[in-house]
């Protein structure tokens, strides 16, 4: 049940911002790590000749 609060807009916006920033702090490093790992795997595949290019 959602509590009925005075100044609801200000309170909920604050808690929403908190949730948004915490979620971003959680997701951003994971997205970046996924990108770095993909790059590293691609570089490794190019070095070893195991690169499977679908457009080739």
């Amino acid at each position, binding site marked *: 049940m959602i509590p009925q*609060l005075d100044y609801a807009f*200000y*309170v909920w916006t*604050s808690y929403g*911002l908190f949730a948004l*920033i*915490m979620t971003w*702090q959680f997701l951003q*490093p994971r997205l970046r790590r996924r990108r770095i790992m993909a790059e590293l795997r691609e570089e*490794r595949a190019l070095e070893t000749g195991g690169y499977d290019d679908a457009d080739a």
Partner: protein
Amino acid sequence: MNFHRFKVAFHRLGSPPTFHKLCRLLSPWLWAGFLVCALVGIYQALYLVPPDYQQGDSYRILFIHVPAAWQAMAGYLVMTVLAVIALVWRIRTVEIMAMAAAPIGAAFTALCLATGSLWGKPMWGTWWAWDARLTSMLVLLFIYLGIMGLYAAFEDRRKGARVACILVLVGLVNIPLIHFSVEWWTTLHQGATIRLFGESRMHPSMLPPLIWMTIGVKLMFGAALLDRARNDLLDQDRRKHWIREVIGDKA
């Protein structure tokens, strides 16, 4: 003997593979701790604590605002300690951690300023006032952004980190200014309500959610710091042999 073991274990943290492994192991536990603390804290803040007799429910914003403000300053102190270690002993993993702390600290400072405005509008009748506490907090945000910008401006990451670490030390002067601004100048912002030493002016029934949220954001800071440092290490060491083992594990 124990001290020697501790010293050896501490020095091993300077080794990138060991540091990477530690980040990978610790981070999920810190995130889990944050989630538990935040859920308990938010539940108490929204459902259990009574409304304030003057401010009504608007004071519930402070359960976000105050932990964010404390963490913005505590994060800077952590970054300063890391910067000193990085400058004196030139440990690369510590340099990386010092630089990884800046965006998290900036996020907490921005959250503190935004929630302060959201509380200020209904209570003070204005979103913003150029008083000493608010202005010094805004300066903290600019310092964090300056450190991030300076670090990013160098192609040589190690040189960038060392220069940015010096800026971290210069910016430290702002932390006591923020803390004592409400005592040194006449400000619209209220004085300290919660004291570590001495009696707090906040009603005891309102303290538990604040404590939960404060512990929660500290755990989150640690978790996000390890996550970001781990990524920076991966990025910087992409040509090193130990990274191949990491990719091998994941492939």
